């Protein structure tokens, strides 16, 4: 029925080819535990293959354009980007220490470190492999499991560098840590694989930002990120992820968080850019009385396609999870929210709340929302809800009746919708930058 032409390129084989290239170049030099991890990951990727149309987790993620693009791993060369370019690309965060990776590699020359409490480590993942080998052996790959996730497997196999953060027990880090990942386009499509491992030990507190950006120029880029965060007992982590890559960019990212007893993790996932964006965000309770908040805010227009998958694993009793995902969709934007809450038999007295609200600014924009509650404990409180709507006529009229123009009124009410999430962005400068973009001259 169909004949393969000789020029046809099999996407899976092409990606396996990238691994072969990586292994040839860097395999020997890698730390043994890391090399083992990578080999296991690529083997699993080869088994899983790329998700097909019958894979429920990927059915609504349109990977076609991504898989058709012949990506090459970003070469290990000095970036063309300067500090001045960064200023144009991302909001300045003078209240935070800045650590920059370009194409998945740490660039100390672009970073702006600040004095941090003694014992706190922020360094490249490459450096950590030699200087913090024990922690790498113990933690890397332990949280972001790739057995069921082809792109976490691929990301684990293909990374070369990234960032490593270690906050030993009992330390409050007063300065937010802002991690910036820039994927720099070249003349051919480029794949960047930033990897991040963050260990926050018992009783510590830290605020983290992860921003992803790419300039609007050159050929397509693909950022394939994997971040693992281990939150120790009674520790508190505030987190924001801001994705504002170019409108031609592909962005597949997984963040997996493990929470020990009594700990708290709160994150705001904010999507502004990208052509295809998928965020897989997982939280796993490893101890009792822990709490996580996973919030999201997506702005999409044009042909943008943004997918958020969250998974909360209530493996332990007395834990609470809160989710509020908001979407503002215009033009032909397509968004997907899939919120899975898994309450195991041990997870008694779970309190899980999930909310999804969508504001449609055009008749052609679509949202696919799917709560997925799997509950095996009997004493739990799980609620979910979703609303989809347009700007309220009464509110628009109220603005017009005060003299605001229709565009200004819509902008104001859109901001009002998004504001609940923006106010929870834990880095003040980032919060202010988002406010200023959405609501000029405040």
């Amino acid at each position, binding site marked *: 029925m169909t004949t393969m032409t000789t020029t046809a390129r099999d996407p899976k084989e092409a990606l396996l080819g990238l691994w072969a290239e990586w292994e040839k170049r860097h395999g020997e030099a890698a730390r043994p535990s890391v090399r083992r991890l990578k080999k296991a990951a690529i083997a699993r990727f080869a088994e899983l293959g790329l998700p097909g149309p019958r894979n429920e987790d990927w059915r609504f993620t349109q990977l076609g354009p991504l898989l058709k693009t012949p990506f090459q791993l970003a070469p290990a060369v000095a970036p063309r980007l300067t500090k001045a370019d960064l200023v144009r690309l991302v909001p300045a965060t003078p209240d935070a220490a800045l650590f920059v990776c370009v194409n998945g590699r740490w660039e100390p020359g672009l970073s702006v470190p600040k004095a941090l409490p003694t014992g706190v480590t922020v360094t490249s993942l490459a450096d950590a492999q030699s200087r913090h080998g024990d922690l790498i052996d113990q933690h890397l790959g332990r949280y972001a499991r790739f057995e069921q996730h082809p792109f976490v497997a691929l990301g684990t196999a293909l990374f070369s560098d990234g960032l490593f953060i270690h906050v030993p027990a009992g330390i409050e880090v007063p300065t937010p840590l802002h991690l910036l990942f820039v994927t720099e386009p070249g003349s051919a499509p480029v794949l960047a694989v930033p990897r991040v491992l963050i260990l926050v030990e018992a009783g510590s507190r830290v605020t983290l930002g992860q921003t992803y950006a790419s300039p609007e120029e050159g050929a397509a880029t693909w950022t394939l990120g994997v971040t693992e965060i281990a939150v120790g007992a009674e520790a508190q982590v505030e987190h924001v992820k801001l994705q504002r890559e170019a409108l031609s960019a592909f962005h597949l990212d997984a963040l997996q968080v493990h929470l020990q007893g009594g700990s708290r993790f709160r994150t705001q996932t904010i999507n502004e850019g990208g052509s295809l964006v998928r965020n897989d965000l997982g939280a796993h309770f490893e101890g009792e009385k822990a709490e996580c908040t996973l919030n999201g805010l997506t702005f999409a227009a044009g042909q943008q396609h943004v997918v958020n998958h969250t998974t909360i694993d209530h493996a332990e009793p007395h834990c609470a999870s809160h989710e509020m995902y908001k979407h503002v969709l215009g033009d032909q934007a397509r968004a997907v929210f899939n919120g899975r809450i898994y309450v195991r038999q041990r997870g008694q007295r779970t309190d899980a709340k999930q909310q999804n609200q969508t504001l449609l600014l055009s008749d052609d924009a679509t949202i696919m929302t799917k709560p997925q509650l799997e509950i095996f404990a009997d004493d739990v409180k799980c609620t979910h809800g979703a609303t989809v709507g347009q700007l309220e*006529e009464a509110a628009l009229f109220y603005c017009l009746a005060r003299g605001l123009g229709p565009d200004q*009124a819509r902008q104001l009410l859109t*901001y009002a919708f998004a*504001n609940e999430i923006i106010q929870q962005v834990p880095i003040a400068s980032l919060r202010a930058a988002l406010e200023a973009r959405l*609501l000029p001259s405040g």
Partner: protein
Amino acid sequence: MLTITNLHARVEDKEILKGLSLQVAAGEVHAIMGPNGSGKSTLAGVLAGREAFEVTAGSVDYRGHDLLELDPEERAREGIFLAFQYPVEIPGISNSYFLRAAVNAIRKHRGEPELDAVQFLKLAKEKMKRLHMDEKLLQRAVNEGFSGGEKKRNEIFQMAVLDPKLAILDETDSGLDIDALQIVAEGVNALRGPDRGIIVITHYQRLLNFIVPDFVHVLHQGRIVKSGGKELALELEAKGYGWIETAQREPAGV
């Protein structure tokens, strides 16, 4: 200032205003009273330009403009202010941001320089003081979590800051206790002046003890069926609206 002639308007398929005529001159305060469903809020909505109300006949002249040709925001910029019966909550937008945006939209239209945050704050605080309003309300989200009285006071506060030529108060007295009512009335009275027209729409006479109107009109089934001085309000209070309805049914007996 405002001349409404034979105004007909409907909401969806229901005709609500059926030939309403009214003239308001600068410096005058007109009260429009009427039972529920007589068309009071429709009149307010039509004057402010709400899309849901469709004008099917008649004309409205406002200071030489064909009012019905103007978009709602143009009417506001030309000096029409509607104090809403149900002010809308806008979470996440501070009262001060909202109102400064409104002031500046109007000032821009008039060719006046926009107010910066400091100038605006000075103006706002001065007006708040007169309305016995807590300055903290400026930083709170527009009407969010406000009590009924706070919302109505906030409308009058907005009116004071925006300095309209024609103010329309749509049942501003509903849901107010007597103290709040007095404060609101003081705020309105402070705005009375030779250059301004005020239309007070109300179901009850109570508000008119504090805002004494020059003229009182009774709206019934979409038309003004009776007009008079302030004493008409007292008569209505004493006799109820049933009296008007009876009079309407038996015109020969008047």
